[in-house]
């Protein structure tokens, strides 16, 4: 889709990311050939790769994002904690260095109190993490976390933190120009996650009042300044049930969920990123930032909700997209497209905006009913379920919310339209005897052999790591 929308397109290699999107040489070569002034790294791929940012600088191409030094500080969670300690930023009690031994782990755990969380310093996406409730579980958990971290990130450094019970994950958007101006642009509530991956995000958070927003925002700015940060970034916090907030980490890139912030502030973050990278000063001050209305984003994934959310690649045979007031759709799919197995299964982001949370929810609910993706499975039905759930509507969410919802009995779906379906079957037969569409379920897009081709895909690898297979 992005190829179709671009003015120029350059082929960078085969689908496997390592040979194309992650290849510095190829990307910089395209920059040279197209005489590009700057590169926007998006999210994922090389967006948080300090070496790549450095390579861009060396090649005379502007990397739209922070400098390599800021990325390096925040790239290691232990190093980030050390910097934050110096800046007087509140964070979850624990160690700011990797644990040297099981004894040290036991000592720290006794000091901070169970339950504790063991985390990989180079980590992300929930890998290399272990929640430990009792002292006897600690040593085996430490060994498991260390080897998982080694396998996933090539770095077995693991540190320890107090585990906050049912925290909320609330993050603050920051934006800094290259002239020393750093401001915060409001928060996003991202507690609705499955296996540590965000699924639904909203802004503002149902529990923040202007005072807490200001306090968290000022801390986020302090964090960014401590890392000499420039351009757009996000400071993540865990918030406990008493509304105490703790620095978790900083993401040194633009995030998937940035649209909700754009809608409530009226700002175009990507445009601002480009302007900042071009050397401009921020065109507003902190006091100019106004939060208006409420926005909620659903990440539409090619996953099968009836099969443990396993990836569902295949050809999209029919696409009916929602629109209307307060509906924004950032989508990469089109009818006739075959969802590839080589990348993340994110298809589209559907965002509902309203003057308040209730209106945002109703508009989004309507849009989710209109959205139809035929030929593959998607998680659209999951969002219908979340949006009608009483706890969600009351804003009662935390990072354990989705697991609880999915464990509960799914709501009974009334199947009362069989007669309508029967009549429709006849009408279709009369008006359109054979669908022009080719059947789904046939071999993958590239026509390669099914079982073997899929075995090599990163989805299958990811599924194994996630314990799905």
């Amino acid at each position, binding site marked *: 889709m992005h190829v179709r929308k671009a003015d120029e397109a350059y082929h960078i290699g085969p689908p496997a990311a390592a040979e194309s999107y992650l290849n510095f040489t190829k990307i910089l070569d395209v920059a040279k050939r197209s005489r590009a002034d700057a590169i926007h790294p998006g999210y994922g791929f090389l967006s948080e790769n300090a070496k790549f940012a450095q390579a861009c600088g060396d090649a005379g191409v502007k990397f739209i994002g922070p400098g390599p030094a800021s990325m390096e500080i925040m790239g290691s969670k232990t190093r980030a904690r050390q910097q934050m300690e110096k800046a007087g930023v509140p964070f979850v009690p624990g160690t700011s260095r990797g644990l040297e031994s099981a004894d040290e782990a036991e000592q720290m755990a006794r000091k901070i109190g169970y339950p504790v969380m063991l985390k990989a310093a180079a980590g992300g996406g929930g890998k290399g993490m272990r929640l430990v409730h009792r002292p006897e579980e600690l040593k085996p958990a430490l060994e498991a976390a260390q080897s998982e971290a080694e396998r996933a990130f090539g770095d077995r450094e693991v540190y320890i933190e107090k585990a906050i019970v049912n925290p909320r994950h609330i993050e603050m958007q920051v934006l800094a120009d290259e002239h020393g101006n750093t401001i915060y642009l409001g928060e996003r509530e991202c507690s609705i996650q499955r296996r540590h991956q965000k699924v639904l995000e909203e802004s503002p958070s149902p529990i923040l009042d202007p005072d807490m927003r200001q306090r968290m925002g000022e801390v986020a700015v302090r964090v960014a300044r401590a890392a000499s940060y420039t351009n757009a970034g996000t400071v993540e916090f865990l918030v406990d049930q008493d509304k105490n907030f703790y620095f978790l980490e900083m993401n040194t890139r633009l995030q998937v969920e940035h649209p909700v912030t754009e809608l409530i502030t009226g700002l175009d973050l990507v445009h601002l990123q480009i302007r900042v990278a071009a050397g401009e000063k921020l065109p507003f001050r902190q006091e100019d930032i106004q939060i208006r209305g409420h926005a909620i984003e659903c990440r539409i994934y090619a996953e099968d909700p009836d099969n443990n959310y396993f990836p569902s690649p295949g050809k999209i045979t029919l696409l009916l997209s929602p629109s209307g007031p307060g509906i924004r759709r950032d989508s990469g799919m089109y009818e006739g497209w075959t969802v590839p197995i080589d990348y993340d299964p994110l298809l589209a982001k559907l965002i509902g905006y309203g003057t308040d949370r209730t209106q945002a929810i109703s508009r989004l609910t309507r849009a989710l009913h209109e959205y139809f993706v035929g030929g593959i499975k998607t998680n659209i039905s999951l969002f219908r379920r979340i949006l009608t759930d009483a706890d969600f509507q009351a804003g009662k969410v935390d990072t354990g919310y989705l697991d609880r919802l999915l464990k509960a009995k799914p709501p009974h779906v009334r199947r009362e339209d069989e007669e309508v379906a029967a009549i*429709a079957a006849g009408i279709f037969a009369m008006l*359109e005897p054979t669908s022009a569409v080719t059947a789904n379920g046939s071999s993958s897009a590239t026509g390669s052999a099914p*079982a073997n081709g899929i075995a090599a895909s990163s989805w299958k690898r990811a599924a194994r790591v996630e314990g799905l297979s």
Partner: protein
Amino acid sequence: MVYDVSIDGKRYRLELERKETRWHCRLNGREVEMDAVLARRDVLSVLIAGKAYEIKREHTATDMHLWVGSVRYLAELHDPRSLRGRRGATADEKGPRKLLASMPGKVVRVLIREEQPVEAGQSILVVEAMKMQNEIKSPKKGIVRKIVAAEGANVNAGDVLAIVE
């Protein structure tokens, strides 16, 4: 036109006629007030007794589904003039039935030998796809006439795996 339709296995007799712009519809003998327009390929906009529905048709290698709103129904059209005279789908239907692969995968286990009898719902073979194992079951009580796919074979969606008579 008369149609013999099953929705999720339940049978309906449907009579449809269109005179210019007016539709006439009888469902199981009952007159139904109906109007319909094909909004686009595979999408039907239907008014039934004053209520509006948007119905999407979706095909997979083996089945046809109709979505009424967000609810999915399995739809099958039978030819009412068929000599097989299927009056109500029963598991004792006469005539050979083919078992098809519903997605690409690999046959990992064949459980029944040719010429062996099976009950409706009994597993005949196991196909593995994307690390999930699916048991392919017999749709009827009968005899396994032929196992087409051997153990270890790669299959594509729509391939015939076995024939049960």
